[in-house]
Protein backbone atom coordinates (compact mmCIF):
# COMPACT_ATOMS: atom_id res chain seq x y z
CA UNK A 1 0.00 0.00 0.00
CA UNK A 2 2.71 2.43 1.03
CA UNK A 3 4.93 1.26 -1.82
CA UNK A 4 2.16 1.87 -4.31
CA UNK A 5 1.68 5.40 -2.96
CA UNK A 6 5.39 6.02 -3.24
CA UNK A 7 5.48 4.69 -6.78
CA UNK A 8 2.56 6.88 -7.84
CA UNK A 9 4.18 9.93 -6.26
CA UNK A 10 7.43 9.27 -8.10
CA UNK A 11 5.61 8.70 -11.37
CA UNK A 12 3.70 11.94 -11.00
CA UNK A 13 6.87 13.79 -10.05
CA UNK A 14 8.54 12.53 -13.21
CA UNK A 15 5.62 13.71 -15.34
CA UNK A 16 5.73 17.12 -13.65
CA UNK A 17 9.45 17.51 -14.30
CA UNK A 18 9.01 16.56 -17.95
CA UNK A 19 6.27 19.19 -18.35
CA UNK A 20 8.42 21.79 -16.60
CA UNK A 21 11.38 21.08 -18.85
CA UNK A 22 9.17 21.36 -21.93
CA UNK A 23 7.83 24.70 -20.71
CA UNK A 24 11.35 25.95 -20.06
CA UNK A 25 12.28 24.99 -23.63
CA UNK A 26 9.27 26.88 -24.98
CA UNK A 27 10.19 29.89 -22.85
CA UNK A 28 13.89 29.96 -23.60
CA UNK A 29 14.22 28.83 -27.23
CA UNK A 30 12.87 32.01 -28.88
CA UNK A 31 15.15 34.16 -26.74
CA UNK A 32 18.11 31.83 -27.30
CA UNK A 33 17.59 31.86 -31.05
CA UNK A 34 17.51 35.66 -30.92
CA UNK A 35 20.88 35.79 -29.17
CA UNK A 36 22.45 33.10 -31.37
CA UNK A 37 21.22 34.56 -34.63
CA UNK A 38 22.60 37.95 -33.62
CA UNK A 39 26.06 36.40 -34.05
CA UNK A 40 25.34 34.63 -37.35
CA UNK A 41 25.55 36.10 -40.84
CA UNK A 42 22.42 36.49 -42.92
CA UNK A 43 23.60 33.68 -45.20
CA UNK A 44 24.09 31.34 -42.26
CA UNK A 45 20.67 32.21 -40.90
CA UNK A 46 19.05 31.48 -44.26
CA UNK A 47 20.93 28.22 -44.68
CA UNK A 48 19.67 26.59 -41.55
CA UNK A 49 18.86 26.46 -37.90
CA UNK A 50 21.60 26.43 -35.31
CA UNK A 51 21.61 26.57 -31.55
CA UNK A 52 25.27 27.62 -31.39
CA UNK A 53 26.74 31.12 -31.80
CA UNK A 54 28.83 32.02 -34.84
CA UNK A 55 31.43 34.72 -35.44
CA UNK A 56 29.63 37.50 -37.27
CA UNK A 57 28.67 39.70 -34.33
CA UNK A 58 30.86 42.61 -35.44
CA UNK A 59 29.79 42.33 -39.10
CA UNK A 60 26.15 42.43 -38.05
CA UNK A 61 26.79 45.48 -35.92
CA UNK A 62 28.45 47.27 -38.82
CA UNK A 63 25.50 46.52 -41.09
CA UNK A 64 23.12 47.60 -38.36
CA UNK A 65 24.67 51.05 -37.87
CA UNK A 66 25.43 51.56 -41.56
CA UNK A 67 21.72 51.89 -42.29
CA UNK A 68 21.26 54.90 -40.11
CA UNK A 69 19.71 53.39 -37.04
CA UNK A 70 20.87 54.88 -33.77
CA UNK A 71 20.51 52.31 -31.05
CA UNK A 72 22.73 54.04 -28.45
CA UNK A 73 20.59 57.17 -28.75
CA UNK A 74 17.41 55.11 -28.38
CA UNK A 75 18.97 53.56 -25.31
CA UNK A 76 19.86 56.92 -23.81
CA UNK A 77 16.36 58.30 -24.52
CA UNK A 78 14.66 55.26 -23.04
CA UNK A 79 16.93 55.39 -20.02
CA UNK A 80 16.14 59.06 -19.40
CA UNK A 81 12.38 58.56 -19.70
CA UNK A 82 12.44 55.39 -17.59
CA UNK A 83 14.51 56.91 -14.78
CA UNK A 84 12.37 60.05 -14.64
CA UNK A 85 9.19 57.94 -14.76
CA UNK A 86 10.49 55.75 -11.96
CA UNK A 87 11.31 58.68 -9.69
CA UNK A 88 7.94 60.33 -10.29
CA UNK A 89 6.00 57.10 -9.86
CA UNK A 90 7.76 56.00 -6.68
CA UNK A 91 7.68 59.37 -4.95
CA UNK A 92 4.09 60.33 -5.70
CA UNK A 93 2.69 56.81 -5.26
CA UNK A 94 4.31 56.47 -1.85
CA UNK A 95 3.20 59.99 -0.88
CA UNK A 96 -0.41 59.25 -1.80
CA UNK A 97 -0.35 55.79 -0.25
CA UNK A 98 1.12 57.20 2.97
CA UNK A 99 -1.71 59.73 3.11
CA UNK A 100 -4.28 56.96 2.81
CA UNK A 101 -2.64 54.63 5.31
CA UNK A 102 -1.68 57.07 8.07
CA UNK A 103 -4.45 59.69 8.19
CA UNK A 104 -8.07 58.97 8.95
CA UNK A 105 -9.49 61.85 6.97
CA UNK A 106 -13.05 62.07 5.79
CA UNK A 107 -13.48 60.33 2.45
CA UNK A 108 -10.46 58.10 2.95
CA UNK A 109 -12.39 54.91 2.26
CA UNK A 110 -13.95 56.40 -0.82
CA UNK A 111 -10.60 57.56 -2.15
CA UNK A 112 -9.05 54.19 -1.42
CA UNK A 113 -11.83 52.38 -3.32
CA UNK A 114 -11.55 54.91 -6.11
CA UNK A 115 -7.90 53.92 -6.57
CA UNK A 116 -8.93 50.27 -6.94
CA UNK A 117 -11.51 51.22 -9.57
CA UNK A 118 -8.94 53.34 -11.42
CA UNK A 119 -6.62 50.33 -11.65
CA UNK A 120 -9.34 48.60 -13.64
CA UNK A 121 -9.95 51.42 -16.10
CA UNK A 122 -8.22 51.27 -19.48
CA UNK A 123 -6.76 54.78 -19.50
CA UNK A 124 -4.71 54.07 -22.62
CA UNK A 125 -7.90 54.30 -24.65
CA UNK A 126 -8.13 58.02 -23.95
CA UNK A 127 -4.79 58.57 -25.66
CA UNK A 128 -6.39 60.48 -28.56
CA UNK A 129 -7.96 63.07 -26.27
CA UNK A 130 -4.71 63.17 -24.34
CA UNK A 131 -2.71 63.70 -27.51
CA UNK A 132 -4.91 66.55 -28.76
CA UNK A 133 -4.80 68.17 -25.30
CA UNK A 134 -1.01 67.87 -25.15
CA UNK A 135 -0.68 69.33 -28.62
CA UNK A 136 -2.76 72.35 -27.52
CA UNK A 137 -0.35 72.76 -24.58
CA UNK A 138 2.61 72.33 -26.93
CA UNK A 139 3.74 69.25 -25.04
CA UNK A 140 3.67 66.72 -27.87
CA UNK A 141 7.08 65.50 -28.91
CA UNK A 142 8.10 66.26 -25.34
CA UNK A 143 9.00 63.63 -22.76
CA UNK A 144 6.97 65.55 -20.17
CA UNK A 145 3.82 64.14 -21.77
CA UNK A 146 5.10 60.62 -21.01
CA UNK A 147 6.38 61.34 -17.51
CA UNK A 148 4.05 63.84 -15.79
CA UNK A 149 0.86 61.71 -15.96
CA UNK A 150 2.62 59.27 -13.63
CA UNK A 151 2.00 61.69 -10.74
CA UNK A 152 -1.39 59.97 -10.64
CA UNK A 153 -0.41 56.32 -11.09
CA UNK A 154 -3.23 54.28 -9.57
CA UNK A 155 -1.40 50.96 -9.81
CA UNK A 156 1.57 52.46 -8.00
CA UNK A 157 -0.62 53.85 -5.21
CA UNK A 158 -2.36 50.50 -4.84
CA UNK A 159 0.96 48.74 -4.48
CA UNK A 160 2.31 51.38 -2.10
CA UNK A 161 -0.80 51.09 0.06
CA UNK A 162 -0.50 47.31 0.31
CA UNK A 163 3.12 47.69 1.29
CA UNK A 164 2.77 50.54 3.79
CA UNK A 165 -0.19 48.89 5.52
CA UNK A 166 2.11 46.04 6.46
CA UNK A 167 4.90 48.23 7.83
CA UNK A 168 3.80 51.66 9.06
CA UNK A 169 4.38 51.94 12.79
CA UNK A 170 2.10 54.48 14.42
CA UNK A 171 4.29 54.70 17.55
CA UNK A 172 7.22 55.86 15.46
CA UNK A 173 5.11 58.60 13.89
CA UNK A 174 3.80 59.67 17.31
CA UNK A 175 7.32 59.77 18.73
CA UNK A 176 8.49 61.95 15.86
CA UNK A 177 5.53 64.28 16.39
CA UNK A 178 6.47 64.71 20.05
CA UNK A 179 9.93 65.72 18.86
CA UNK A 180 8.22 68.38 16.81
CA UNK A 181 8.79 66.89 13.37
CA UNK A 182 6.51 68.11 10.62
CA UNK A 183 4.27 65.59 8.85
CA UNK A 184 6.20 65.86 5.59
CA UNK A 185 9.47 65.50 7.49
CA UNK A 186 8.17 62.28 9.08
CA UNK A 187 7.30 60.94 5.64
CA UNK A 188 10.61 61.92 4.05
CA UNK A 189 13.06 61.17 6.82
CA UNK A 190 11.45 58.42 8.86
CA UNK A 191 9.00 56.45 6.76
CA UNK A 192 10.67 56.53 3.35
CA UNK A 193 13.99 55.09 4.58
CA UNK A 194 12.05 52.26 6.21
CA UNK A 195 10.03 51.70 3.05
CA UNK A 196 13.05 51.32 0.78
CA UNK A 197 12.46 47.62 -0.07
CA UNK A 198 8.87 48.33 -1.14
CA UNK A 199 9.87 51.49 -2.97
CA UNK A 200 12.62 49.60 -4.78
CA UNK A 201 10.20 46.92 -5.93
CA UNK A 202 7.72 49.55 -7.09
CA UNK A 203 10.62 51.30 -8.81
CA UNK A 204 11.60 48.17 -10.75
CA UNK A 205 8.06 47.83 -12.08
CA UNK A 206 7.81 51.51 -12.93
CA UNK A 207 11.11 51.26 -14.77
CA UNK A 208 10.15 48.16 -16.75
CA UNK A 209 6.73 49.61 -17.54
CA UNK A 210 8.25 52.77 -18.96
CA UNK A 211 11.11 50.93 -20.71
CA UNK A 212 8.64 48.63 -22.49
CA UNK A 213 6.04 51.29 -23.30
CA UNK A 214 5.55 51.65 -27.01
CA UNK A 215 2.01 52.87 -27.67
CA UNK A 216 2.09 56.20 -25.80
CA UNK A 217 5.54 57.14 -27.06
CA UNK A 218 4.56 56.08 -30.56
CA UNK A 219 1.63 58.52 -30.54
CA UNK A 220 3.18 61.39 -28.61
CA UNK A 221 6.81 61.48 -29.80
CA UNK A 222 7.41 62.42 -33.42
CA UNK A 223 11.01 63.50 -34.01
CA UNK A 224 13.48 60.72 -34.72
CA UNK A 225 16.11 62.08 -32.31
CA UNK A 226 13.65 61.56 -29.48
CA UNK A 227 12.65 57.99 -30.35
CA UNK A 228 12.74 55.60 -27.44
CA UNK A 229 14.10 52.09 -27.83
CA UNK A 230 10.82 50.33 -28.75
CA UNK A 231 10.31 52.94 -31.48
CA UNK A 232 13.83 52.38 -32.78
CA UNK A 233 13.00 48.67 -32.87
CA UNK A 234 10.00 49.45 -35.00
CA UNK A 235 12.25 50.96 -37.67
CA UNK A 236 14.08 47.61 -37.75
CA UNK A 237 10.89 46.16 -39.16
CA UNK A 238 11.03 48.63 -42.04
CA UNK A 239 12.10 48.08 -45.63
CA UNK A 240 15.71 49.16 -45.13
CA UNK A 241 16.47 46.01 -43.17
CA UNK A 242 14.20 43.67 -45.09
CA UNK A 243 16.87 41.09 -45.93
CA UNK A 244 19.48 41.83 -43.29
CA UNK A 245 18.39 39.11 -40.87
CA UNK A 246 21.62 39.06 -38.87
CA UNK A 247 21.46 42.80 -38.28
CA UNK A 248 17.79 42.67 -37.29
CA UNK A 249 18.44 39.93 -34.73
CA UNK A 250 21.38 41.87 -33.35
CA UNK A 251 19.32 45.05 -33.04
CA UNK A 252 16.68 43.16 -31.09
CA UNK A 253 19.27 41.30 -28.99
CA UNK A 254 20.93 44.54 -27.89
CA UNK A 255 17.67 45.59 -26.22
CA UNK A 256 17.21 42.21 -24.51
CA UNK A 257 20.64 41.58 -22.98
CA UNK A 258 20.59 44.40 -20.38
CA UNK A 259 17.12 43.30 -19.28
CA UNK A 260 18.31 39.73 -18.77
CA UNK A 261 21.31 40.93 -16.75
CA UNK A 262 19.12 43.14 -14.57
CA UNK A 263 16.71 40.28 -14.10
CA UNK A 264 19.40 37.88 -12.94
CA UNK A 265 20.39 40.43 -10.29
CA UNK A 266 16.91 41.54 -9.17
CA UNK A 267 14.67 38.53 -9.87
CA UNK A 268 14.00 38.00 -6.16
CA UNK A 269 12.54 41.50 -5.74
CA UNK A 270 10.63 41.32 -8.99
CA UNK A 271 8.94 38.03 -8.21
CA UNK A 272 8.02 38.94 -4.65
CA UNK A 273 6.79 42.30 -5.92
CA UNK A 274 4.36 40.80 -8.44
CA UNK A 275 2.70 38.85 -5.67
CA UNK A 276 2.66 41.86 -3.35
CA UNK A 277 0.70 43.96 -5.78
CA UNK A 278 -2.03 41.37 -6.10
CA UNK A 279 -2.50 39.94 -2.66
CA UNK A 280 -4.14 41.55 0.25
CA UNK A 281 -2.52 40.26 3.40
Amino acid at each position, binding site marked *: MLNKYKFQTNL*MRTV*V*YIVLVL*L*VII*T*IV*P*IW*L*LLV*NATRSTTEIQQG*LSMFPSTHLVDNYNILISKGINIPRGFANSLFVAVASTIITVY*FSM*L*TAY*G*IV*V*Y*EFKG*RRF*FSNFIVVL*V*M*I*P*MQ*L*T*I*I*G*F*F*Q*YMSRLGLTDNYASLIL*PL*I*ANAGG*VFFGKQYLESMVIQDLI*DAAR*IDGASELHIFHNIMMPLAVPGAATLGIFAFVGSW*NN*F*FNAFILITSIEKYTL*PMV*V*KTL*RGDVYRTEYGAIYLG*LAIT*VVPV*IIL*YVVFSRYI*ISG*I*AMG*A*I*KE
Partner: protein
Amino acid sequence: MKLTGINRNYYGYFFIAPFIIGFLVFGLYPVYNTLALSFTDYTLMSRGGSFIGLRNFQVLFADELFVKAIKNTWLIWMLNFIPQIGAALLLSAWFTSVRLKIKAVGVWRAIFYLPNLIIPAVVAALFNSLFAFYGPVNQFMVRAGFLPEAMHFLQNANIARGIVVFIQWWMWFGQTIIIVMAGMTSIPVHLYEAAMVDGASASQMFRRITLPLLKPILIYIFVTSLVGGMQMFEIPYLLTDGRGAPSNSIMTNNILMYMKFASSKGHIGAASAVGVLVFLMTTISALSIFFFMRDRDDSSVDKTARKWFSKKNKS
Protein backbone atom coordinates in the same frame (compact mmCIF):
# COMPACT_ATOMS: atom_id res chain seq x y z
CA MET B 1 1.05 59.73 26.64
CA LYS B 2 -1.60 59.71 23.99
CA LEU B 3 -1.50 61.94 21.00
CA THR B 4 -4.88 61.18 19.53
CA GLY B 5 -6.06 64.42 21.11
CA ILE B 6 -4.10 66.33 18.50
CA ASN B 7 -5.94 65.85 15.26
CA ARG B 8 -3.64 65.82 12.32
CA ASN B 9 -5.85 63.70 10.15
CA TYR B 10 -6.63 66.58 7.81
CA TYR B 11 -2.99 66.33 6.68
CA GLY B 12 -4.14 63.36 4.64
CA TYR B 13 -5.63 65.80 2.14
CA PHE B 14 -2.23 67.40 1.57
CA PHE B 15 -0.69 64.02 0.93
CA ILE B 16 -3.27 62.96 -1.62
CA ALA B 17 -3.60 66.40 -3.23
CA PRO B 18 -0.83 65.91 -5.85
CA PHE B 19 -2.46 62.68 -6.97
CA ILE B 20 -5.87 64.31 -7.27
CA ILE B 21 -4.50 67.27 -9.21
CA GLY B 22 -2.46 64.94 -11.44
CA PHE B 23 -5.51 62.80 -12.00
CA LEU B 24 -7.75 65.73 -12.91
CA VAL B 25 -5.19 67.22 -15.29
CA PHE B 26 -3.72 64.10 -16.91
CA GLY B 27 -6.42 61.49 -16.30
CA LEU B 28 -9.92 62.89 -16.14
CA TYR B 29 -9.57 65.78 -18.56
CA PRO B 30 -8.26 63.52 -21.38
CA VAL B 31 -11.26 61.24 -20.77
CA TYR B 32 -13.57 64.23 -21.20
CA ASN B 33 -11.57 65.51 -24.17
CA THR B 34 -11.70 62.13 -25.93
CA LEU B 35 -15.43 62.00 -25.39
CA ALA B 36 -15.86 65.55 -26.68
CA LEU B 37 -13.72 64.86 -29.76
CA SER B 38 -15.74 61.75 -30.55
CA PHE B 39 -18.74 63.96 -31.36
CA THR B 40 -16.79 66.05 -33.87
CA ASP B 41 -15.24 65.63 -37.32
CA TYR B 42 -11.96 67.03 -36.03
CA THR B 43 -8.91 66.12 -38.11
CA LEU B 44 -5.24 66.79 -37.51
CA MET B 45 -5.06 68.48 -40.91
CA SER B 46 -7.84 70.96 -40.28
CA ARG B 47 -6.87 71.48 -36.62
CA GLY B 48 -10.51 72.04 -35.93
CA GLY B 49 -13.87 70.51 -36.43
CA SER B 50 -17.53 70.88 -35.90
CA PHE B 51 -20.04 69.03 -33.79
CA ILE B 52 -21.58 66.18 -35.77
CA GLY B 53 -23.47 64.39 -33.02
CA LEU B 54 -23.39 60.64 -33.12
CA ARG B 55 -22.30 60.31 -36.73
CA ASN B 56 -18.85 58.90 -35.87
CA PHE B 57 -20.53 56.18 -33.86
CA GLN B 58 -23.06 55.42 -36.59
CA VAL B 59 -20.23 55.05 -39.08
CA LEU B 60 -18.36 52.74 -36.71
CA PHE B 61 -21.29 50.45 -36.05
CA ALA B 62 -21.88 50.16 -39.78
CA ASP B 63 -18.21 49.42 -40.34
CA GLU B 64 -17.45 45.72 -40.64
CA LEU B 65 -13.84 46.37 -39.74
CA PHE B 66 -14.80 47.78 -36.35
CA VAL B 67 -17.01 44.80 -35.56
CA LYS B 68 -14.23 42.51 -36.70
CA ALA B 69 -11.67 44.33 -34.52
CA ILE B 70 -13.88 43.94 -31.44
CA LYS B 71 -14.47 40.26 -32.18
CA ASN B 72 -10.78 39.61 -32.82
CA THR B 73 -9.69 41.33 -29.64
CA TRP B 74 -12.11 39.29 -27.51
CA LEU B 75 -11.21 36.08 -29.30
CA ILE B 76 -7.45 36.56 -29.04
CA TRP B 77 -7.76 37.55 -25.39
CA MET B 78 -9.97 34.58 -24.46
CA LEU B 79 -7.88 32.05 -26.37
CA ASN B 80 -4.76 33.11 -24.48
CA PHE B 81 -6.38 33.73 -21.11
CA ILE B 82 -7.94 30.29 -20.67
CA PRO B 83 -4.72 28.29 -21.18
CA GLN B 84 -2.89 30.92 -19.17
CA ILE B 85 -5.04 30.55 -16.08
CA GLY B 86 -5.16 26.79 -16.62
CA ALA B 87 -1.38 26.50 -16.75
CA ALA B 88 -1.09 28.78 -13.73
CA LEU B 89 -3.50 26.73 -11.60
CA LEU B 90 -1.91 23.44 -12.58
CA LEU B 91 1.68 24.56 -12.11
CA SER B 92 0.90 26.36 -8.86
CA ALA B 93 -0.77 23.23 -7.52
CA TRP B 94 2.34 21.25 -8.44
CA PHE B 95 4.74 23.82 -7.03
CA THR B 96 2.93 24.01 -3.69
CA SER B 97 2.24 20.28 -3.41
CA VAL B 98 3.52 18.80 -0.16
CA ARG B 99 3.41 15.40 -1.77
CA LEU B 100 5.48 16.14 -4.87
CA LYS B 101 8.09 18.39 -3.20
CA ILE B 102 9.21 19.93 -6.51
CA LYS B 103 12.77 21.22 -6.31
CA ALA B 104 14.00 24.71 -7.27
CA VAL B 105 10.51 26.20 -7.55
CA GLY B 106 11.99 29.70 -7.50
CA VAL B 107 14.20 28.97 -10.50
CA TRP B 108 11.37 27.51 -12.62
CA ARG B 109 9.15 30.47 -11.85
CA ALA B 110 11.91 32.95 -12.58
CA ILE B 111 12.49 31.39 -16.01
CA PHE B 112 8.78 31.36 -16.88
CA TYR B 113 8.50 35.04 -16.02
CA LEU B 114 11.41 36.15 -18.21
CA PRO B 115 9.45 36.79 -21.46
CA ASN B 116 7.31 39.34 -19.63
CA LEU B 117 10.31 41.64 -19.18
CA ILE B 118 11.24 41.87 -22.84
CA ILE B 119 9.98 44.92 -24.72
CA PRO B 120 6.73 43.75 -26.42
CA ALA B 121 7.77 45.54 -29.60
CA VAL B 122 10.94 43.41 -29.59
CA VAL B 123 8.94 40.23 -28.97
CA ALA B 124 6.71 41.00 -31.95
CA ALA B 125 9.66 41.74 -34.22
CA LEU B 126 11.39 38.58 -32.97
CA PHE B 127 8.42 36.34 -33.78
CA ASN B 128 8.10 38.02 -37.15
CA SER B 129 11.66 36.89 -37.86
CA LEU B 130 11.19 33.43 -36.36
CA PHE B 131 8.12 32.75 -38.50
CA ALA B 132 9.51 34.34 -41.66
CA PHE B 133 9.66 32.26 -44.85
CA TYR B 134 13.40 31.72 -44.40
CA GLY B 135 13.08 31.73 -40.63
CA PRO B 136 14.02 29.12 -38.02
CA VAL B 137 10.50 27.70 -37.60
CA ASN B 138 10.25 26.79 -41.26
CA GLN B 139 13.75 25.36 -41.21
CA PHE B 140 12.92 23.19 -38.22
CA MET B 141 9.53 22.04 -39.50
CA VAL B 142 10.87 21.07 -42.92
CA ARG B 143 13.95 19.33 -41.60
CA ALA B 144 11.98 17.41 -38.98
CA GLY B 145 9.52 16.36 -41.66
CA PHE B 146 6.46 18.12 -40.21
CA LEU B 147 6.07 20.18 -43.37
CA PRO B 148 6.84 19.10 -46.95
CA GLU B 149 8.08 22.61 -47.82
CA ALA B 150 8.46 26.02 -46.20
CA MET B 151 5.24 27.97 -45.85
CA HIS B 152 4.20 31.59 -45.34
CA PHE B 153 2.92 31.34 -41.78
CA LEU B 154 2.16 35.04 -41.51
CA GLN B 155 0.00 35.03 -44.63
CA ASN B 156 -2.44 32.51 -43.20
CA ALA B 157 -5.22 34.16 -41.18
CA ASN B 158 -5.67 31.39 -38.63
CA ILE B 159 -1.97 30.77 -38.14
CA ALA B 160 -1.23 34.47 -37.71
CA ARG B 161 -3.97 34.74 -35.11
CA GLY B 162 -2.67 31.60 -33.44
CA ILE B 163 0.80 33.12 -33.25
CA VAL B 164 -0.56 36.26 -31.57
CA VAL B 165 -2.45 34.07 -29.08
CA PHE B 166 0.71 32.08 -28.41
CA ILE B 167 2.85 35.19 -27.92
CA GLN B 168 0.36 36.66 -25.47
CA TRP B 169 0.29 33.38 -23.55
CA TRP B 170 4.08 33.10 -23.67
CA MET B 171 4.51 36.61 -22.27
CA TRP B 172 1.97 36.36 -19.46
CA PHE B 173 1.71 32.81 -18.10
CA GLY B 174 4.77 33.25 -15.88
CA GLN B 175 3.31 36.26 -14.14
CA THR B 176 -0.02 34.51 -13.64
CA ILE B 177 1.76 31.54 -12.04
CA ILE B 178 3.53 33.82 -9.58
CA ILE B 179 0.29 35.52 -8.51
CA VAL B 180 -1.74 32.30 -8.25
CA MET B 181 1.03 30.60 -6.33
CA ALA B 182 1.31 33.47 -3.86
CA GLY B 183 -2.42 33.11 -3.32
CA MET B 184 -2.14 29.37 -2.77
CA THR B 185 0.69 29.65 -0.25
CA SER B 186 -1.30 32.20 1.75
CA ILE B 187 -4.01 29.59 2.42
CA PRO B 188 -3.45 28.25 5.95
CA VAL B 189 -2.02 24.73 5.96
CA HIS B 190 -4.27 23.62 8.83
CA LEU B 191 -7.28 23.68 6.51
CA TYR B 192 -5.66 21.02 4.32
CA GLU B 193 -4.53 19.04 7.35
CA ALA B 194 -8.03 19.00 8.76
CA ALA B 195 -9.47 17.98 5.39
CA MET B 196 -6.88 15.24 5.09
CA VAL B 197 -7.86 13.87 8.50
CA ASP B 198 -11.43 13.76 7.24
CA GLY B 199 -10.23 11.72 4.27
CA ALA B 200 -10.64 14.32 1.53
CA SER B 201 -8.93 13.53 -1.77
CA ALA B 202 -6.52 15.90 -3.50
CA SER B 203 -9.10 16.96 -6.06
CA GLN B 204 -11.74 17.52 -3.35
CA MET B 205 -9.33 19.73 -1.44
CA PHE B 206 -8.54 21.66 -4.61
CA ARG B 207 -12.21 22.27 -5.41
CA ARG B 208 -13.46 22.89 -1.88
CA ILE B 209 -10.57 24.74 -0.26
CA THR B 210 -8.12 26.05 -2.83
CA LEU B 211 -10.50 27.41 -5.48
CA PRO B 212 -12.94 29.22 -3.17
CA LEU B 213 -10.12 30.85 -1.23
CA LEU B 214 -8.33 31.82 -4.43
CA LYS B 215 -11.39 33.55 -5.80
CA PRO B 216 -10.34 37.14 -5.01
CA ILE B 217 -6.97 36.55 -6.66
CA LEU B 218 -8.55 34.91 -9.67
CA ILE B 219 -10.88 37.88 -10.08
CA TYR B 220 -7.90 40.22 -9.89
CA ILE B 221 -6.08 38.27 -12.62
CA PHE B 222 -9.24 38.05 -14.71
CA VAL B 223 -9.92 41.79 -14.57
CA THR B 224 -6.37 43.02 -15.09
CA SER B 225 -5.84 40.58 -17.94
CA LEU B 226 -9.09 41.66 -19.60
CA VAL B 227 -8.23 45.35 -19.33
CA GLY B 228 -4.78 44.69 -20.77
CA GLY B 229 -6.12 42.38 -23.46
CA MET B 230 -8.66 44.90 -24.76
CA GLN B 231 -5.79 47.35 -25.31
CA MET B 232 -3.53 44.87 -27.08
CA PHE B 233 -1.44 46.69 -29.65
CA GLU B 234 2.27 46.07 -30.13
CA ILE B 235 2.18 42.33 -30.76
CA PRO B 236 -0.38 42.28 -33.59
CA TYR B 237 0.79 45.66 -34.87
CA LEU B 238 4.45 44.72 -35.31
CA LEU B 239 3.95 41.05 -36.14
CA THR B 240 2.63 41.78 -39.63
CA ASP B 241 2.04 44.96 -41.60
CA GLY B 242 0.46 47.02 -38.83
CA ARG B 243 -2.94 46.89 -40.51
CA GLY B 244 -4.16 43.58 -39.12
CA ALA B 245 -3.04 41.46 -42.07
CA PRO B 246 -3.54 38.72 -43.17
CA SER B 247 -7.18 39.49 -44.04
CA ASN B 248 -7.72 41.55 -40.87
CA SER B 249 -7.33 38.43 -38.75
CA ILE B 250 -5.23 40.23 -36.12
CA MET B 251 -6.87 43.64 -36.41
CA THR B 252 -7.50 44.74 -32.81
CA ASN B 253 -9.31 47.68 -31.20
CA ASN B 254 -6.17 49.71 -30.67
CA ILE B 255 -4.79 49.05 -34.15
CA LEU B 256 -8.04 50.35 -35.63
CA MET B 257 -7.92 53.39 -33.36
CA TYR B 258 -4.32 54.03 -34.39
CA MET B 259 -5.15 53.61 -38.10
CA LYS B 260 -7.85 56.26 -37.89
CA PHE B 261 -5.48 58.53 -35.98
CA ALA B 262 -2.61 58.01 -38.43
CA SER B 263 -4.73 58.11 -41.59
CA SER B 264 -3.67 60.67 -44.18
CA LYS B 265 -5.92 63.37 -42.73
CA GLY B 266 -5.67 62.22 -39.12
CA HIS B 267 -9.31 61.64 -38.26
CA ILE B 268 -8.96 62.07 -34.53
CA GLY B 269 -12.70 62.53 -34.10
CA ALA B 270 -13.29 59.08 -35.52
CA ALA B 271 -10.31 57.65 -33.61
CA SER B 272 -11.74 59.07 -30.40
CA ALA B 273 -15.05 57.37 -31.11
CA VAL B 274 -13.24 54.02 -31.26
CA GLY B 275 -11.50 54.85 -27.99
CA VAL B 276 -14.76 55.83 -26.31
CA LEU B 277 -16.61 52.68 -27.34
CA VAL B 278 -13.81 50.33 -26.35
CA PHE B 279 -13.29 52.28 -23.14
CA LEU B 280 -16.97 51.85 -22.22
CA MET B 281 -17.01 48.19 -23.22
CA THR B 282 -13.88 47.39 -21.21
CA THR B 283 -14.77 49.43 -18.15
CA ILE B 284 -18.28 48.00 -17.92
CA SER B 285 -16.99 44.43 -18.38
CA ALA B 286 -14.18 44.87 -15.85
CA LEU B 287 -16.23 46.59 -13.18
CA SER B 288 -19.14 44.18 -13.48
CA ILE B 289 -16.82 41.19 -13.18
CA PHE B 290 -15.24 42.81 -10.15
CA PHE B 291 -18.47 43.70 -8.38
CA PHE B 292 -20.66 40.73 -9.27
CA MET B 293 -18.13 37.96 -8.82
CA ARG B 294 -16.80 39.31 -5.55
CA ASP B 295 -18.48 37.91 -2.45
CA ARG B 296 -20.84 40.40 -0.90
CA ASP B 297 -19.89 39.28 2.58
CA ASP B 298 -16.25 39.14 3.48
CA SER B 299 -15.26 35.60 2.59
CA SER B 300 -12.82 35.06 5.39
CA VAL B 301 -10.88 31.86 5.59
CA ASP B 302 -12.71 30.65 8.66
CA LYS B 303 -16.11 31.21 7.13
CA THR B 304 -15.27 29.16 4.05
CA ALA B 305 -13.70 26.53 6.24
CA ARG B 306 -16.76 26.36 8.47
CA LYS B 307 -19.01 25.97 5.45
CA TRP B 308 -16.91 23.09 4.21
CA PHE B 309 -16.83 21.33 7.55
CA SER B 310 -20.56 21.69 8.19
CA LYS B 311 -21.24 20.27 4.73
CA LYS B 312 -18.93 17.38 5.55
CA ASN B 313 -20.70 16.67 8.83
CA LYS B 314 -24.14 16.67 7.26
CA SER B 315 -23.27 14.10 4.67
